[in-house]
Structures are given as structure tokens and as C-alpha cells.
């Protein structure tokens, strides 16, 4: 009983992290049709930046949340630069975009290895979230519960931004019909940069708040990226609800798969993706591409 409950909480927690990672990936793909293979690297960069700020720069140790926000802002700037300086020059060229973003992810991986070395870095749980919450005979780590809360808050915040603001309506208009959006005066190119930076910030934020659970190590980028891809294929590109549901599903499949069928963990992970691709290629909540 305990085993199942704990596994369930872990799955939802992991799903929450995946949502933060994949929401940006999905928006970037939905709006700009850019398969951003640097997304795992942005997650990793956020984790490394945050970990560094936490252990202290110039003798100043930062609060966990301040470090997380600073790391996210830093990575948002990197994301904006990638979009402005590189991807901007390759509109509509999916092959070039894949090559450039994949190349960047290799460069980022090597740079991180140079700067932070090959050993995993442990990220300490924020002290006041270090305890457990007891429910009968089961104890849930507070931090994992906090991640679930954060993911839900971000999901609601992103939903409000997209569905309840003029900026969000403009972004959706840009997804619907980019040419017509420009003709009615929407500066789609600025929106692209904003969305890319926002997606990068979310990924980086996921990286650092995932730190206490996953730690930070070389290769975490390539561990996370395929999961984000699976989420987006399951949920449908450009759909926030799709990212959310897809993330929770993948969180469960991944955790239960590793616990129960460790030899088949990847098979169990990719099988649902395959089924969705065969029977509902636009994803569970995606719209049919025109």
C-alpha cells in the first residue's frame, strides 16, 4: 500500500517537473514550429546556474527561491539570444533548426562539463521544506508536495496568461495564422522572442527546483529532452492542457515503469507515444495541423 502511494506521489511530482519543462517546448513548437532541441540544455543550465548560486558566489549564499528565479532569468536571456541571433535566420527550415538546436545542445553539454566537471552536484532541499508530511502510516516528503503545488500554480498562471490576457490572445492568434496576425498589426516576431524566453525560463526553473530530487549531472539534458518530446506528442503541440495531462501521464509511466518493469522502462514509455502517433497524430488535445 505504502509503496503504491509513494510511487503515485513521485509520479505526480515528476509529472509537475515535466510540465514546467514541456509547456515551453510545446508553446515554442506550436507558435514558431521550431523543434527546440536545446530545451533539455536549458533545463540543465538552469540547474547548474541555480546550484552555483546556492553554494555561493563570491561568498554570498542565496536563498533557494531567489537562486531559482535568478537562474531562470539568466536562462531566459540565453533563450532570447538563441532566438534572435540564430533561429530568427532559419524561418520555416525545420531541418536547419534541428541541426542548429542539436548542435547548440552539444556545445552547452561540453561547456557545462568544462565548468562544473563530471561529478553530480547535489542540490539541497530548502530547509523549511525538508520534513515529511505524515498521513497515517505513510510519510510524504514536503518538498515533493511543494513541487506539485508549484506546478499547479504555474499551470494556472500560464493558462491565465494565454487565455485571459491580450498578450495571450495575440500569441494564440499567431499560432492560428501568423501571416494574418501580422496583417492586423501584431508584432509576431516580438511574440516569438517573448515565448522563447518564457519557455527557456520555465525549463530552467524546472531544472533548479528538480535539483533536490534529480541532482544535477552531465547528461541530464539528454535524459529530459526525450521525455519532453513524449509529453508534447502525447498531449498535442501548442496545447497547455495537453502538456499538463501529457506530463502527468508520462510521470506515471516513467516512475511505474522503472519500479515495476525496469528492463522495459523505455519500451513502456514510448509505446503510448507510438499508439498516439498511429491513432491520433495531432495528440490527445492538439488540433489537426492545417
Amino acid at each position, binding site marked *: 500500500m505504502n509503496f503504491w502511494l509513494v510511487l503515485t506521489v513521485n509520479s505526480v511530482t515528476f509529472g509537475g517537473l515535466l510540465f514546467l519543462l514541456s509547456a515551453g517546448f510545446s508553446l515554442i513548437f506550436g507558435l514558431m514550429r521550431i523543434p527546440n532541441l536545446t530545451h533539455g540544455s536549458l533545463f540543465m543550465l538552469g540547474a547548474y546556474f541555480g546550484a552555483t548560486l546556492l553554494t555561493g558566489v563570491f561568498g554570498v549564499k542565496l536563498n533557494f527561491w531567489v537562486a531559482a528565479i535568478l537562474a531562470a532569468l539568466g536562462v531566459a536571456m540565453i533563450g532570447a539570444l538563441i532566438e534572435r541571433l540564430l533561429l530568427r535566420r532559419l524561418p520555416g527550415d525545420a531541418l536547419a533548426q534541428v541541426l542548429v538546436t542539436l548542435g547548440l545542445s552539444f556545445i552547452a553539454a561540453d561547456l557545462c562539463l568544462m565548468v562544473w566537471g563530471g561529478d553530480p552536484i547535489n542540490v539541497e532541499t530548502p530547509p523549511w521544506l525538508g520534513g515529511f508530511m505524515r498521513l497515517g502510516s505513510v510519510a510524504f516528503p514536503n518538498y515533493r508536495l511543494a513541487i506539485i503545488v508549484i506546478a499547479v500554480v504555474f499551470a494556472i498562471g500560464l493558462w491565465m496568461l494565454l487565455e485571459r490576457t*491580450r498578450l495571450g*490572445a*495575440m500569441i*494564440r*492568434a499567431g*499560432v*492560428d*495564422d501568423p*501571416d*494574418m*496576425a*501580422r*496583417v*492586423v*498589426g*501584431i*508584432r*509576431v516576431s516580438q511574440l516569438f522572442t517573448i515565448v522563447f524566453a518564457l519557455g527557456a525560463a520555465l525549463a530552467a526553473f524546472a531544472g533548479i527546483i528538480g535539483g533536490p530530487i534529480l541532482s544535477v549531472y552531465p547528461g541530464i539534458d539528454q535524459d529530459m529532452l526525450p521525455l519532453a518530446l513524449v509529453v508534447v506528442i502525447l498531449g498535442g503541440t501548442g496545447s497547455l492542457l495537453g502538456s499538463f495531462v501529457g506530463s502527468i501521464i508520462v510521470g506515471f509511466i516513467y516512475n511505474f515503469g522503472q519500479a515495476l518493469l525496469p528492463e522495459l522502462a523505455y519500451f513502456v514509455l514510448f509505446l503510448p507515444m507510438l499508439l498516439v502517433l498511429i491513432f491520433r497524430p495531432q495528440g490527445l488535445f492538439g*488540433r489537426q495541423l492545417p
Partner: protein
Amino acid sequence: MATSALALNGVDAFYGDSHVLQKVSFTLGEGRLLGLLGRNGAGKSTCMNVTVGLLPPRQGTIEVFGTPVTRLPPEQIAARGVALVPQGRRVFRSLSVQENLIVAARAPDPGSRHAPWTMETVFKMFPRLEERRNQISAHLSGGEQQMLAIGRALMQNPRVLLMDEPSEGLAPQIVAEVMATVRKLKDSGLSIVLVEQNPKLVFDIADDIVILNTGQVAVVSTAAEINQAGVDLRQHLGVF
């Protein structure tokens, strides 16, 4: 001479290798309505796409109230007061009616003499849109989508309004409604280009007529002259 609201001067445009506009020139006077006629494929929609910046011309210039806008990106041409009601309506399908209007909203030019268009005035003109303000626009009927496309263009508080076949695919009664709207907009002093395949709709509303034939300007005239002289347009427009 009256101020020109929009002028195309010797515009050449290509889709790939095909030369779709050849030295096209015409002028829309301020506060006038220019009917742009021609058969399917004559280049009418291409003229609109060139004007709003979706298809940069290879040669020639485009001016809006005397300011060149040639090869500016679409959002900057929109900021200079050009709005398009596109062929096929192209409303933002996943947005609600209200959102379609909000995203296009732009403050009018300081020198503008018209009362500015707001969501309220658009809803006053199209009460049916107000009833459906929270509906997703993909679920609207063709006529309602056409009204939304017009309302969206008006929210930009344009100085030049381009309407690309607003009657296309609509029931006759709705067409009459749309044309009545066009007349109201003209009477408000807006400068309008009305693209149509059906000349009958255009002749009793237009001031000026331009007829395109295979990418070239074939006829430039006024509606009055054509009506008076009974010019035979069949060679340019096909039998009607």
C-alpha cells in the same frame, strides 16, 4: 487634386517564377471607393497581398497617404493605417469573437476625423457579433465570420480599408447585408478598395473602377463613365 489614400506605382510581383503582377498602377482617392475587378487569377488578391506587405513587390512603389510603405513588414504597414478583410475571411479560429477584435485594436491616428472604432461601436454595427462575443470564432456561420473579419479590420482604425471578395460564398441576403455595411463605411469617409468577381455588386457602390486582366491593368475609369458609356467589359470579365 484630391489626396491619394493609396497608390500603387508600376508594381511587379512574382510567385516563384510566375509574373503575377505586371506594372500595376492605380490610385485610390481619399474617401473614395475603388472597385477592383477581374477574372479569377487576374491578380486582384495579389494586389491586396502586395499592399499589406505579405508579398514584397520586385519592382514599383506603394504609398499610403503619400508615405512609401514598399517592402515594409506587414505589421508596420498595418501601423500606417492599412487594414485588410482577407479573402476567405481568415478569422483567428481558436479565438473568441471578442478576442479576435481585441488583438487587432489600435488607437486611431491623432489627426483622424472619424469617431474611433471600439468594440462597442463594432458591436453596434454587427449586433449578432455581440450576441456571440464569447463564442469561438470557428463555430460562427460564414456570414458571421465575414462580419467578424470586417469588425476586426475596423478595430485597427484604418485609414485605408481593403476588402477582398467579402461576398464570396455567402447567401444573397447576407451579401446584401455586407454590401450595406460597405456603403455605410464609405459614407463615413473611409477610403476603400473593394475586390470583387461580381461586377454588379460593385458598379452601384464604387466611385472608381480598375479592371485587371492577367496581371495587368486593363481599364481605369469611374463607375459613372462606365455606366453612361455602356462600355463593353465582357472581354475582361467574362460573360455576366
